[in-house]
């Protein structure tokens, strides 16, 4: 097989999911330009370099924006988190949805959903549980 070794092995989505299943929250860090990114990709969206490396996320971040989804059977939070490394992701901030505010510092945690899948969520730093 004549293939380019930079792209050998499982793709970035598979590798990210596999790491999450082991309790590790990864993002990508591009060696040439230093940019952090999420979700993972085969390309750096900042400089165009191929196959940016997967690295462990610090899990620290701040709430960039937030909404409460209101349904008849209850409400839940959906937020966009600015990760300390510079990437951004959708997630859920745990606790009372009405207390979630833009700008609050948060920390990541991996929980297991009803269907048994691992999921990255965030807690407000310093908030009473």
């Amino acid at each position, binding site marked *: 097989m004549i293939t380019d070794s930079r792209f050998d092995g499982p793709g970035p*989505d598979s590798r990210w*999911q596999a790491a999450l299943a082991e309790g590790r929250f990864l993002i990508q860090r591009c060696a040439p330009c230093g940019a952090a990114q*999420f*979700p993972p990709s085969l390309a750096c969206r900042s400089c165009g370099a191929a196959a940016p490396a997967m690295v462990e996320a610090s899990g620290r971040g701040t709430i*960039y*924006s*937030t*909404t*409460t*989804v*209101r349904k008849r059977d209850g409400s*839940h939070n*959906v*937020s*966009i988190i600015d990760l300390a490394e510079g990437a*951004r*992701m*959708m*997630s*859920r901030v745990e606790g009372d949805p009405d207390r979630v505010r*833009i*700008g609050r510092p948060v920390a990541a945690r991996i929980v297991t*959903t009803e269907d048994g*899948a691992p*999921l990255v969520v965030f807690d407000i730093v310093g908030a009473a549980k």
Partner: protein
Amino acid sequence: MSDPHRGTTAVIGTGITNRWDAPGFSAFDQLQEASILALEDAGLSLGDVDGLFCAMSVSGLPVLNVAEKLGLNIRHADGTMAGGSSFIFHMRSAMAALNAGLCDVALIAYGSNQRSAGGRLVPMPDPQPYEAPYKALYPISSYALAAQRHMHEFGTTRAQLAEIAVAARKWAQLNPAAFERDDLTVEDVLASRIVSDPLSKADCCLVTDGGGALVMTRADRARDHAAPAYLLGVGTAVSHRQIAAMPDLTTSCAVQSGREAYRMAGLGPGEVDHVMVYDAFTICTLMFLEDLGFCAKGEGGAFCASGAIAPGGSLPVNTNGGGLSCNHPGMYGIFTVIEAVEQLRGRCGARQVAGAEVALAHANGGVLSSQATAILGTAATI
């Protein structure tokens, strides 16, 4: 120096079914009726069409299905699917194809039975594994996140957003074809049920059926037709797919599509007489008016609440009643262009903008993801 594409093509026919609640009439039926109406309006027939441009949410192969159903013999086609903005992407593509001689008569068409099919978006397969587990309501939560950030940065209020829904309704009351024409007040909007903070049900567009179509040709051929609307400039842009990947939640890539459309047209926002912006949610009107330069970034709330965009205001915006009050069959973008063309032709009755010579139609796709801007003008602008 003016752009070589400026004014080289024109819309010479529009078709709109005005069937916003039509059980038994399929998405393809809506598209076909609109196409027939648009060709009749242009004084042409189905046999004249040699370029087909379409996107649908019910079919992954709309070009094939539409060509078969309408018996078209096409030599050029484009099925670009960028969400609700697709039809202005198609206009840019049709402009290039017409000027390159790849086709002579371009039909751009859309139809949907979203309302009578049960009122739900029928999404094309497009899994989003990094966002889906968080159970955001699609698409409203994405727009809610943008609205929340806009409020945080600029002090925009729910009452200002409510004024946008009220202005749209006032325009709809002047349009006998609009779906929702009952009185609506700011208090009504504020009392509406919150779906995803800060957006309530009344901040959301309608869910309707409907069909729309445009016929485009080169300017040399357009002169033989009644009141062509010349395409002066058109720009397109894509910034993301999922809302968390939007670079700045308060500024869309309408900045980029607008800049390209203005450059090609050799015009600025101050020279636009009539504006159509895709109002899937109230926040969209506000954000696109800012991004397209009709007011400064952050001032959209005050601008819209001042009465400027309502009937009698300084800038006629969404004069058909918009997606909020006229119609919204899933992918609304083509209807922004149809209303812009009809205003330039002076065929809008009680809602007619007197002396409109330059109109801007802007459409959005996905979750503020794709943006497309068309600037059209009467023969006097050429």
